[in-house]
């Protein structure tokens, strides 16, 4: 490089005219373009000048200056908010014509709502809500009561939402969400925003009454200045403003307006592309510029953000309000089992971040359930320990304290999105396993061998035993949730269903076992259980006394086993769903899918080998013999009546019953196909095998989602029909 030229270039300084960052004491702005140009002349293709700590990887995150897609410092239109304001981008009042001013205010409100929904859906606050210049300069709007109060409420809402989400913070989903670098989230006097909004609402309501009275030629009781001067539009405008102001509190008013939107639309230009519009009128709002804030949206380069349409924004908020309503009306069930069921049920409707954050804050506060119940008391109840345990010194045991922390972590994780939830559940399985082992060791150290002490001898022994069993039960519950979420997230492909259902089956066996033990111990029948085992007549009597939660699990268990065995039989006898791959085998796929379960020994002594042992020789005759689906159906029928007061669980049992029934039918059909066309049982008849592959492939898609997600009866039916027509 030409050294002197470069130096000369470097000395040649041009203070930038519009720099928003002033020079410091020891620094000055200088134009490096000549230096760069001189350097570039010396470089050939593929060469790079770099320091020791700058490698190719670092180069990858280089920003290309002056590329609008990457350079967040690039000036788009205005250098600063002030400059935009000076150029009349966000006038106050918006128009000197009051009618137009009201129209424009409504557009701004609509667009802000769309921006807020877009922010909630994962885009930066700076480039959505705070693209509104009125929001960025809180003082400017003070003469415009409606706009001013609405902006204050929006700012306050954003602040409140950021605070809820940051308090509930569990993972990176919130990082971008809560980032508010230098944005004026808090304006002086924002705490009074609700009373201001109330006053505005009151005024508009009076204006509405006044204009209604005028139109019906009644006497006007008060002397009220109208909202604007076009009397034909007065009522519509008043209503439009009222429902916007009231929306968060009375969503139905917004719905009302959706139906009367056409009338409002008449004032704007009616164009195509309603679904794209961010305002009800379809006009572009005044006073927004997303580029002004792009420097605040770091660390990611600015991105062109597509603001959600007004329709979608309203839909989003209606769903949010519905979800929040569920959270608010939840009865604070004191049992952990109830809490878990509620959270799992709530998550089925795929609530968004804000609703999930609220749920989490409701469940866990100050390390207590609902900020109310000490976690040890919750564990005591969940593990069916005697009441006295609540105040027992054992809660000071370090492992018991850790266990409490694990329960809290689990609750928090269950409130996150399904993808993240599954990853974290997989990881905490190990923690639960470790705490079990530590508790067991602590228990042994303190009390010696379990068998040498009778239960009554020491309350501590009892507590430890119960807790150990409960820790295991909870571990298997987490494992089953982990496996189930894999379906929801579409992580399994059809040729893996067999092993997934099989693993689910082995986990459910353990879960049912632990649950049964807990329930029978708590009802005092545990001791009798062993003695009566050989008495077959009493065995039947005992069968009928199997607790409901255990029967429920057994129903799941039969289905999982049945599905796994049916898939294995299909593979073994009809050679479908085999998946040879060039680089690895089913064994590696098994290791990968169940890695976290295996690491945590959930369950013990389960490996690919045990999977192969239980499925390699499965035939359709085995399935017919064991009647998995019929058993599942029978149990479902049996327990249905017990859930008559719980519609969610009743629906779940009904689904299980349906799935069992459909698969029972499917199994019969498959067996008959096999009998009618023995060639199907032989391998390598390409056409036949292709056909059966097609049929069975489709059949499975009907099976798997049925098991977890609301069933699709029409699909199942069409599959059966499709199937029968092939046989005929």
């Amino acid at each position: 490089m030409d050294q002197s030229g470069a130096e000369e270039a470097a000395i040649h300084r041009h203070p930038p005219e519009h720099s928003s960052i002033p020079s410091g004491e020891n620094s000055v702005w200088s134009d490096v373009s000549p230096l760069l140009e001189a350097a570039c002349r010396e470089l050939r293709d593929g060469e790079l000048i770099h320091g020791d700590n700058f490698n190719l990887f670092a180069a990858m995150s280089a920003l290309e200056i002056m590329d609008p897609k990457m350079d967040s410092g690039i000036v788009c239109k205005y250098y600063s908010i002030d400059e935009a304001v000076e150029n009349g981008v966000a006038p106050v009042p918006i128009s000197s014509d009051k009618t137009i001013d009201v129209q424009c205010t409504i557009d701004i409100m609509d667009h802000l709502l769309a921006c807020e929904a877009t922010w909630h859906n994962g885009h930066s606050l700076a480039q959505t809500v705070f693209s509104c210049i009125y929001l960025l300069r809180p003082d400017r709007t003070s003469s415009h009561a409606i706009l001013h109060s609405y902006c204050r409420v929006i700012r306050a809402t954003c602040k409140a939402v950021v605070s809820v989400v940051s308090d509930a913070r569990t993972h990176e989903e919130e990082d971008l969400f809560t980032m508010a670098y230098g944005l004026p989230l808090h304006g002086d006097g924002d705490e009074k925003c609700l009373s201001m909004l109330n006053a505005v609402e009151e005024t508009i309501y009076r204006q509405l009454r006044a204009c209604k009275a005028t139109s019906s030629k009644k006497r006007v009781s008060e002397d009220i200045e109208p909202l604007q001067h076009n009397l034909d539009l007065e009522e519509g405008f008043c209503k439009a403003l009222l429902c916007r102001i009231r929306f968060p509190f009375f969503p139905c008013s917004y719905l009302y307006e959706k139906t009367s939107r056409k009338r409002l639309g008449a004032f704007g230009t009616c164009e195509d592309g309603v679904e794209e519009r961010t305002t009800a009128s379809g006009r572009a709002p005044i006073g927004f510029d997303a580029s002004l804030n792009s420097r605040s949206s770091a660390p990611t380069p600015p991105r062109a953000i597509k603001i959600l349409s007004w329709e979608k924004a309203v839909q989003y908020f209606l769903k949010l309000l519905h979800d929040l309503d569920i959270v608010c009306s939840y009865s604070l069930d004191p049992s952990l089992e109830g809490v878990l069921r509620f959270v799992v049920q709530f998550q089925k409707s795929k609530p968004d971040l804000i609703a999930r954050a609220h749920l989490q804050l409701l469940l866990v506060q100050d390390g207590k359930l609902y900020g109310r119940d000490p976690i040890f008391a919750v564990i005591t109840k969940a593990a069916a320990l005697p009441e006295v345990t609540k105040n027992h010194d054992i809660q000071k045991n370090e492992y018991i304290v850790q266990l409490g922390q694990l329960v809290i972590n689990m609750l928090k994780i269950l409130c996150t999105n399904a993808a993240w939830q599954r990853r974290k559940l997989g990881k905490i399985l190990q923690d639960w396993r470790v705490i079990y082992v530590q508790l067991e060791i602590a228990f042994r150290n303190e009390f010696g061998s379990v068998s040498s002490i009778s239960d009554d001898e020491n309350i501590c022994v009892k507590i430890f035993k119960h807790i150990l069993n409960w820790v295991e039960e909870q571990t298997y519950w987490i494992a089953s949730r982990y496996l189930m979420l894999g379906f929801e997230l579409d992580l399994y492909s059809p040729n893996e269903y067999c092993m997934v259902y099989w693993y689910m089956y082995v986990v459910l066996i353990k879960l049912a076992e632990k649950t049964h033990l807990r329930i029978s111990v708590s009802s005092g029948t545990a001791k009798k259980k062993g003695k009566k085992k050989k008495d077959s007549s009493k065995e039947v009597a005992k069968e009928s006394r199997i607790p409901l939660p255990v029967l429920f699990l057994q129903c799941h268990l039969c289905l999982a086993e049945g599905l796994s065995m049916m898939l294995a039989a299909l593979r073994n006898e009809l050679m479908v769903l085999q998946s040879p791959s060039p680089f690895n085998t089913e064994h590696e796929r098994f290791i990968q899918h169940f890695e976290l379960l295996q690491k945590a020994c959930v369950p013990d002594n389960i490996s690919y080998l045990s999977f192969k042992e239980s499925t390699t020789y499965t035939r359709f005759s085995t399935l017919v013999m064991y009647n998995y689906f019929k058993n599942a159906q029978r149990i479902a029928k049996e327990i249905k009546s017990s859930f008559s007061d719980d519609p969610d669980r009743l629906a779940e049992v009904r689904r299980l019953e349906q799935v069992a029934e459909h698969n029972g039918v499917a199994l019969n059909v498959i067996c008959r196909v096999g009998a009618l066309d023995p060639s199907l049982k032989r391998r390598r008849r390409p056409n036949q095998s292709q056909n059966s592959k097609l049929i069975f492939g489709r059949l499975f898609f009907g099976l798997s989602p049925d098991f977890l997600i609301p069933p699709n009866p029409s699909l199942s039916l069409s599959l059966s029909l499709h199937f029968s027509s092939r046989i005929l």
Partner: protein
Amino acid sequence: MEPNKEERQQQQEAAQKAEFDPSEIEYVIYGGEHHLPLIMNLVDQELSEPYSIFTYRYFVYLWPNLSFLAFHRGKCVGTVVCKMGEHRTTYRGYIAMLVVINSYRGRGIATELVTRSIKVMMESGCEEVTLEAEVTNKGALALYGRLGFIRAKRLFRYYLNGVDAFRLKLLFPIPEINPVLSMIAESDEIHTHDQIPQQECQELQQGS
């Protein structure tokens, strides 16, 4: 003049299917700067995400042996760009970009390209191979599924367009237990009735 609907359809069909025999496709390992514009054009053309030249150089300068190009009569019609290295406790390969131009898709070019890279990774001692694909990219998911990849994780709103991604993983067998060579021999048979995906591209997220 704007072509009418029928003509447009015919043109599209012609564009969709290039006529060629698979044996005419020539596969070439990355050979230097002269290949770089070809790769960049292809990726820019077919993938939505714009990558800076630094991103391409990062990959092809450090792992030229893992990048391949497919040519048909001198025209570059597909490419794969990868890397490998330590990741936590494992040595893993990573498929960064895989592209085949639209009219050449569905004929096994992407499978061949990516298979070549994976073989090099395996020979270089990688224990596993990983990549991300959009959950909506059925073609890519099917392709990798046939190669033995599992969907290990779902990544919530991974791409800037808000779409989730799957992290796909391929675990190689531990050589002592399962001799790899015998399986590759077996695989030839499978490839003969391979069903080819419609779309075979997947994207790399910037800065990951």
